[in-house]
């Protein structure tokens, strides 16, 4: 026996919302099938697109920096905001699960910075980026450097509205990391191989690592740098200057 609310065309008096134009509804057994056909990350992508428009209107260029914990993102940023500060307004968004330690390091350079703590979250998303933009209100023409949560998996999936993605790997990690974390390396516009000053002490093959990265991202640019000695940083700054 069909209960009233199981019947495909039940006659109770409350109004049903009209289906949206892109939803098709068909009665199916006990319930009703609603066709959705929407990207899972549609909401994030929409917010990211709004961030992108907001920044484009103000000539702000955001660079999303991603790596495993300890690859040297914050040290690279400290150097960059000090070295570039005279050329162009620079602001920083610091993402970490907890603490304000990284923002404090950047603040000591005199650069505008906002810390985003994701708590249990393992990546920044477009909503956090929007809140960071509101809090920072970067000057027209700014370079906005975003340090994502140290993680080579999750941040690759979440568009923040950035102009470009930079993935950093340090020579104390494995040469084969681009193959182990292909999604991240496939998403990169630029790969920085950091800590080149330690190359004499570790078993890391820069050329092989670049080949692995290109096997998942054929056109990616790869630069070798050391945030400690400054080696190669001028090429990274040239690349940043090209991001408009």
């Amino acid at each position, binding site marked *: 026996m069909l209960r009233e*609310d199981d019947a495909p065309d039940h006659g109770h008096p409350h109004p049903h919302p009209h289906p949206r134009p892109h939803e098709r509804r068909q009665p199916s057994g006990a319930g009703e099938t609603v066709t959705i056909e929407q990207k899972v990350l549609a909401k994030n992508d929409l917010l990211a697109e709004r961030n992108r428009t907001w920044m484009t209107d103000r000539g702000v260029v955001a660079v999303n920096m991603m790596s495993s914990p300890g690859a040297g993102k914050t040290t690279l940023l400290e150097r960059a905001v000090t070295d570039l500060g005279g050329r162009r307004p620079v602001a920083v968004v610091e993402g970490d699960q907890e603490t304000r330690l990284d923002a404090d390091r950047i603040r000591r350079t005199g650069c505008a910075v906002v810390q985003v703590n994701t708590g249990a979250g393992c990546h920044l998303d477009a909503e956090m980026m929007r809140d960071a933009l509101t809090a920072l209100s970067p000057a027209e023409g700014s370079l906005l450097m975003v340090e994502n949560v140290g993680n080579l998996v999750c941040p690759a999936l979440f568009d923040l509205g950035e102009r470009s993605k930079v993935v950093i790997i340090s020579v104390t990690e494995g040469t084969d990391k681009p193959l182990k974390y292909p999604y991240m390396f496939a998403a990169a516009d630029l790969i920085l191989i950091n800590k080149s000053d330690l190359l004499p002490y570790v078993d890391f093959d820069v050329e092989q690592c670049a080949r692995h990265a290109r096997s998942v991202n*054929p056109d990616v640019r790869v630069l070798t740098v050391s945030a400690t000695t400054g080696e190669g940083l001028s090429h990274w700054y040239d690349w940043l200057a090209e991001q408009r």
Partner: protein
Amino acid sequence: MHELAITQSVVDSVCERAGGRPVRSVRVRVGVLTAVVPDSMRFCFGLVTEGTAAEGAQLEIDQPPGAGRCRTCAVAFTLTDLILLCPCGSADVEITSGQELQIVSMEVG
């Protein structure tokens, strides 16, 4: 770990569309070349739906296989990972399937 945030997005979307009606099942499409693990998603779905209109709902996951097409020699072939290398030796490969991450449909009522 991002499966939690992704599953939360799915559940938020379907509950919003359901407009208060109970959600009995949700069908998603997760290509094999996305960095999303179906088993993790199922685990998260149980947690995230608790106390929502989708509590107790079934999660059905379609997994389109990976496929690519070589821009050099135009041959189409299966991709099991993101290493984009055509049998002809070219790395100029377009991914034609396997990167889907979509909510397909739901059953309500």
